[in-house]
């Protein structure tokens, strides 16, 4: 990992903030506020996380009722059980879609997201448009992602905060009865973990 960011030049980016964060890094290292390994560990921490973790949690919940119960009651304990490192000061809450309720996650104030599990949120999740509209017209928002629950389904929008981060447990698609855990996990997209879409065969 050494040299991960030593070769960035002006051609890589047009943001003046690229040089500012390099300057801040250099000064913090020189003053001993942070060490190089601490910065590296922090980069590796985030790189090691992605929606694949969420997909694993969902697939296991689909095939194991006891695990589903744990996931819904103590999501961090469930993540630990699958070998993940869910430690984070914020709560991690999983909400379950049913035939009567569809859940949608947003962070209207910023970009709060279960990063300890899923890594960085996608750009659209952080966009002003998504943050503004998800609570006002969730169905219109979902339509833009190619999905809309039937009229009879209640849409529940969860506004994340610095202290509580949400993930959706989607419904297992019909026709997947013969699928194994890994195959099931492949159906679980990041969009379905936020609720703007659902897993499909």
């Amino acid at each position, binding site marked *: 990992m050494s040299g991960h960011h030593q070769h960035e030049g002006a051609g890589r980016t047009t943001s003046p903030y690229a*040089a500012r*964060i390099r300057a*801040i890094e250099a000064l*913090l290292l020189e003053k001993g506020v942070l060490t190089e390994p601490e910065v590296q560990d922090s980069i590796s921490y985030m790189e090691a996380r992605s929606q694949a973790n969420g997909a694993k949690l969902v697939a296991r919940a689909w095939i194991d009722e006891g695990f589903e119960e744990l996931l819904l009651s103590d999501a961090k304990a469930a993540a630990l059980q699958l070998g993940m490192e869910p430690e984070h000061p914020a709560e991690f809450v999983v909400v379950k879609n049913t035939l009567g309720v569809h859940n949608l996650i947003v962070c209207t104030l910023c970009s709060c997201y279960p990063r300890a599990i899923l890594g960085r949120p*996608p*750009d659209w999740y952080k966009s002003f448009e998504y943050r*503004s509209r998800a609570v006002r017209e969730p169905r219109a928002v979902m339509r833009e992602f190619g999905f809309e629950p039937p009229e009879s389904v209640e849409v529940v929008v969860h506004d994340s905060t610095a202290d509580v981060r949400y993930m959706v447990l989607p419904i297992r698609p019909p026709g997947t009865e013969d699928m194994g855990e890994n195959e099931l996990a492949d159906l679980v997209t990041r969009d379905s973990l936020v609720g703007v879409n659902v897993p499909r065969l």
Partner: protein
Amino acid sequence: MGGVHDMGGSPGGPIDRGQHEVEDWERLADAINAALGGKGLQTTDQHRRAIESLEEYRNLSYYERWVAATEKLLVEKRVLTSDEIDERAASIRRRWDGL
């Protein structure tokens, strides 16, 4: 009234679903922020307050806001000064420009 960040429920246009490739400086901004948090030098709430009080909030990209906020907190806490960050950033840019 809420601040500039308090946009839930406001009208808005179509959502751009494109994803930009995360650049190294953005990874670094993320990492420095988390490392400072790990050392107890800043909290999520402090970082949020710094982001939300940026005059340029709407004109900056996501990680630009993060860098500006981290800088603001480090200066407020007297860990670094604006002058030394300015000076070092200028020297880094000169190096990148091959000057």
